[in-house]
């Protein structure tokens, strides 16, 4: 036993919270998507650590699926950003308030 799983959980929590802060404070839509990637990676670290410590490959397979969903999310998200930029000439989040009340 070399590294307790608690360390992995703390690392993952720090990265996840960094992602949450990024989503909340950035105004650039691309930076917000990058923060979402941070959160996905934090969960992946958790999955792999538990998969190692419980000797169960299910966790690694789950990371595989999370990666698939991340790829899909990036494709659709960046397409939406390009469409937004085409209609508003901006990727600043505060310029998009059509659906805000």
């Amino acid at each position, binding site marked *: 036993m070399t590294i307790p799983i608690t360390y992995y959980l703390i690392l993952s929590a720090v990265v996840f919270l960094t992602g*949450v802060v990024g989503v909340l404070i*950035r105004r650039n839509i691309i930076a917000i998507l990058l923060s979402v990637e941070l959160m996905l990676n934090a969960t992946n670290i958790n999955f792999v650590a538990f998969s190692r410590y419980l000797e169960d490959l299910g966790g690694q*397979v789950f990371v595989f699926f999370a990666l698939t969903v991340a790829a*899909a999310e990036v494709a659709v998200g960046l*397409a939406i950003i*390009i469409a937004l930029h085409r209609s508003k000439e901006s990727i600043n989040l505060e310029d998009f308030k059509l659906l805000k009340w």
Partner: protein
Amino acid sequence: MAQLVFGYFAGVIAVTAMLVVALRNPVYSVLSLLIMFFHVAGLYVTLHAEFLAAVQLIVYAGAILVLYLFVVMLLNAKQDDRYHRQWRVAGFVCVPLLLELLVLFAGGKMEPSPLFSADQTGPGTDNAKAIGMTLFSTYLFPFEVASLILLVAMIGAIVLAKRDIGGSGA
């Protein structure tokens, strides 16, 4: 030794994650995310998930980040990018969460699982083979659903980013 390696990877991951959020130029954010992905892959190798480390490098660092860089440079996003004014809300949400986590980790002493044994390389001897066996037997149906998700994402991206040629296209 193992703790030294973990400390290096964890430190670089934490610092570059914060740089992704803190740097104002999106290109620099993407590049520090690239460094983070490399170190996450290294962490996977130390956890005996070699296949996932390779997939992490190929898919994340190779495909997803290139897509990000492409869009960042396409949109020329070097505008004034101040932080959102709701950063107080962010602090209000995240500081209590961090404190709760610290209390949890400090209070609950986590026992190593009885299933765990130090250097047993049981199913991990040939990681890629083991993952393939699991993926195509137990998780066959989710695997097919994942391919459907990719198809839907591809069609969605094309429809969203397509320029309306001559106003006749849908």
